[in-house]
């Protein structure tokens, strides 16, 4: 069977809370990254606070509703980002959120590779029926990456985000199990 935690450019791993807190502390100083990821105001937190969140998250790591991974590159073994899943067990679907903290790895297919690994995990290991995500309309790079992975635009909340004096939309994208299976071209996973 396939190694579920190994893609073409990246692998899923688990960083120690200390390592993760140091990296995430650095990433929070990148306000552009923050605005791509989130609708909250950019804020800075202490390393201690960040480590507490990460420890809380690892305490939840045996829950069937919650999955989180650290991401490392295969070539350099560099820790570059994260990916998390929130599962709705009753309705067999999940939401995904991911980010690449290290800017030199933007726009080079790393995010797409992370998402492909995530889709394989969601559909062949968790056996869910759909995966959902939300993305800001001003993040066309992410939207293109999700489309490449097979996500379709399903809806839009108009003007719910006010950034730099302009109201922008939130987009909602999704992929169904059957759509993903069809994209695998008989490549058995």
């Amino acid at each position, binding site marked *: 069977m396939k190694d579920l935690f190994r893609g073409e450019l990246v692998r899923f791993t688990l960083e120690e809370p200390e390592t993760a807190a140091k990296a995430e502390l650095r990433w929070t100083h990148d306000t552009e990254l923050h605005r791509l990821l989130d609708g909250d105001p950019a804020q800075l937190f202490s390393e201690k606070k960040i480590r507490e969140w990460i420890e809380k998250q690892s305490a939840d790591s045996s829950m*069937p*509703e919650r999955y989180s991974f650290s991401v490392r590159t295969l070539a350099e073994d560099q820790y570059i980002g994260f990916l998390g899943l929130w*599962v709705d*067990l*009753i*309705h*067999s679907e999940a939401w995904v959120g991911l980010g690449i903290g290290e800017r030199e790895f933007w726009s080079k297919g790393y995010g797409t590779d992370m998402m492909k690994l995530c889709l394989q995990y969601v559909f062949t*290991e*968790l*056996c869910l029926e759909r995966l959902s995500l939300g993305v800001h309309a001003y993040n066309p790079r992410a939207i293109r990456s999700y489309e490449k992975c097979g996500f379709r635009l399903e809806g839009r909340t108009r003007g719910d985000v006010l950034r730099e004096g302009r109201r922008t939309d939130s987009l909602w994208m999704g992929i169904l199990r059957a759509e993903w299976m069809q994209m695998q071209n008989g490549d058995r996973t």
Partner: protein
Amino acid sequence: MKDVLTGKLVRLAAFDPEEMSKAFTRWNLNSEYQRLSNSDPTRMPSAKRNAKWMEDRVAELSPARYHFSIRTLAEDKLIGELGLDVVDWSGRDAFVGLGIGETEYWGKGYGTDVMNVLLRFAFTEINLRRVTLSVFEYNPRAIRSYEKAGFRHEGYLRNFLNRAGHRWNEIYMGILREEWMGLNTDTAG
């Protein structure tokens, strides 16, 4: 839509540890009830002790655990208890255990009605793929009731129990979503 928790003779109602522990303690004064419902040596824990573990069980809100009391529709009388534990989310399988503690309701279709309601809940509300149970070889009344509800014999642990000078098998039974849908085309919605 139908009331998913009401059957023809019974309804599934809230599990109140205080009420249930008193009834459960009384039911277990009957050693036959204990021998039909579990493999532990029959004994008599106090109502207080029973209330403690029941409170601990219901305190945890989880999509994987459901506890109900069983009440008759005619008299609104508490006659039994029922638990459904999802054991595997990727296979969407759950284990069910139920007991009718009030012996005057034995052999009159109440257990079968409970199981019919439970299966509708499991397949249309929790959206499970299968339901599993185990029953002791010396409980033909229960086995026949489960068969009527659509369960099939899937396997057994040989000589699992030693009771009344005999060794008895523990029988495993299961029902798949498709099988249940086929039996319940009118109630499937």
